[in-house]
């Protein structure tokens, strides 16, 4: 075979060309400047349902869908004015038309070539119907997932919102009942029953509020903007000032970067982690260190305490909504804090985990993508 480069156009012998085209793993069509088909390989016959005889000498237009035929001649003329190797119709969905009139999704590469003193374009055609089908299926699954996710969010929100109404009535009236009649009309047992009811409805109110908070991470989240994590942590510490002062906790704050985030939500994350660090304190007075370091394209944040820690086998469970490791009597709370943290961090494109052991304190880690425009600098 004889390849000779000349102003971007390849020259080779006709026989060599025929062999190359026939052996190619995709459909190959050689077309002259007037748009007449000069050569096809057997894959083209299979793809379009024509025999070689039916194609050679015909206009290439018979393989082009009717709707794009008028434009096709223009494109061809332009190609011959400036012949270079390129993909056809980049960014557009391309179709060929089979003999039976059906459309075939294709990808087409164009190569200019010269043989026997004449210029041609050699089009290499790949049938992408299976890829298209897979893409369409994937898209459909994605939409389905998005829909079911949205439905769930909406469901949680509506549930928690609308459940509050009747619960408020139950709660208020049992309290009114207790206030007016306990110790008077009711005996001790009845008073106890009432107390259980009042407690349970207050607890349910707490759970509903938490569920609402949890679902609001998605439904009421703000747009992510560039924020300084230092001021985020300072706000969280200000909100926790009373608790921090009460237990005499020492807070060590390292250098923190700027990230793209939802300010109130990130304050919430630090607030939950720091308040947990204080709440689950050991006999020593609490020391909480907050730090951050680079890790590839992410910032790795650490909130470490010297508290009671816990068995690492619960490391996953602590991030699940309403899961608690201690009884409500020992440590109050509904088990929402870390679940909210996880949801917020995941909304920001990061992940959160814990390293801990009983009596050894706990270190909560989470990642946040670096700011691209800042080249990852703080």
């Amino acid at each position, binding site marked *: 075979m004889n390849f000779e480069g000349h102003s971007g156009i390849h020259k080779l012998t006709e026989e060599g060309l025929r062999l190359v085209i026939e052996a190619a793993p995709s459909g190959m069509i050689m077309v002259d400047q007037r748009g007449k088909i000069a050569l096809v390989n057997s894959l083209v016959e299979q793809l379009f349902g024509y025999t070689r005889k039916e194609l050679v000498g015909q206009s290439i237009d018979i393989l082009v869908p009717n709707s794009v035929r008028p434009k096709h001649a223009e494109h061809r003329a332009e190609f011959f004015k400036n012949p270079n190797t390129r993909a056809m119709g980049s960014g557009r969905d391309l179709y060929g038309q089979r003999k039976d009139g059906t459309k075939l999704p294709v990808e087409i590469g164009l190569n200019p070539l010269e043989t026997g003193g004449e210029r041609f374009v050699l089009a290499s055609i790949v049938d992408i119907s299976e890829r298209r089908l897979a893409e369409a299926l994937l898209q459909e699954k994605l939409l389905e997932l998005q829909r079911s996710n949205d439905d769930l969010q909406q469901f949680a929100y509506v549930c928690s919102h609308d459940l*509050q*109404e009747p619960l*408020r*009535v139950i709660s*208020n*009236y049992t309290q*009114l009942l207790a*206030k007016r009649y306990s110790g008077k009309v009711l005996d001790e047992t009845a008073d106890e029953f009432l107390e259980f009811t009042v407690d349970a409805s*207050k607890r349910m109110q707490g759970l509903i509020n938490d569920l609402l908070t949890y679902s609001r991470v998605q439904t009421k989240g703000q747009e992510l903007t560039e924020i300084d994590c230092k001021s985020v942590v300072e706000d969280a510490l200000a909100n926790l000032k009373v608790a921090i002062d009460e237990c005499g906790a020492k807070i060590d704050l390292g250098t923190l970067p700027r990230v793209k985030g939802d300010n109130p939500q990130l304050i919430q994350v630090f607030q939950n982690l720091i308040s947990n660090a204080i709440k689950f304190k050991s006999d020593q007075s609490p020391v909480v260190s907050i730090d951050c370091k680079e890790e590839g394209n992410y910032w790795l944040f650490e909130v470490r305490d010297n508290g009671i820690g816990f068995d690492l086998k619960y490391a996953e469970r602590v991030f699940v909504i309403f899961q608690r490791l201690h009884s409500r009597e020992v440590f109050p709370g509904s088990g929402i804090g870390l679940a909210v943290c996880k949801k917020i961090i995941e909304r920001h494109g990061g992940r959160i985990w814990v390293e801990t052991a009983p009596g050894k304190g706990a270190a909560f880690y989470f990642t946040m993508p670096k700011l691209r425009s800042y080249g990852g600098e703080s």
Partner: protein
Amino acid sequence: MNRKLQMLLVEDSEADARLILEVMKDQNVAVDISVVRDGEEAMSYLYKQNGYEKVSRPDLIVLDLNMPKKDGREVLAELKANLDLRSIPVLILTTSNSDEDIVKSYKLQASCYVTKPMDLDKFSDIVKSMDQFWFANVRFPHRR
């Protein structure tokens, strides 16, 4: 003139309306309260139409937001657009916690916005402060 203050309570929930009355009773709040159950009825009351021809003009309106037919937001907008009625102070008492509702209510000239509490003690506190502020100290137009 020493007549009692007239308060119009616009509340669709019978349980909530009753609770307010009960808590007021517990606290011996000396106010005449009329209750209507939706926004349309509230407007009839204020315009003295459809059976409300003989009622007296309320000194104060306590208004729920989420109600059937005409809701509290519409009632508030309509009465604040009415030259004769706009001077009546309106207290919003609702379950809604949404910032939108809070902002919108004040823009529509609500005098204050209170969220219905879960806890009876807090409810009592609200009624108590209403009593001490609105019913004991505040002066209203159209009262001599």
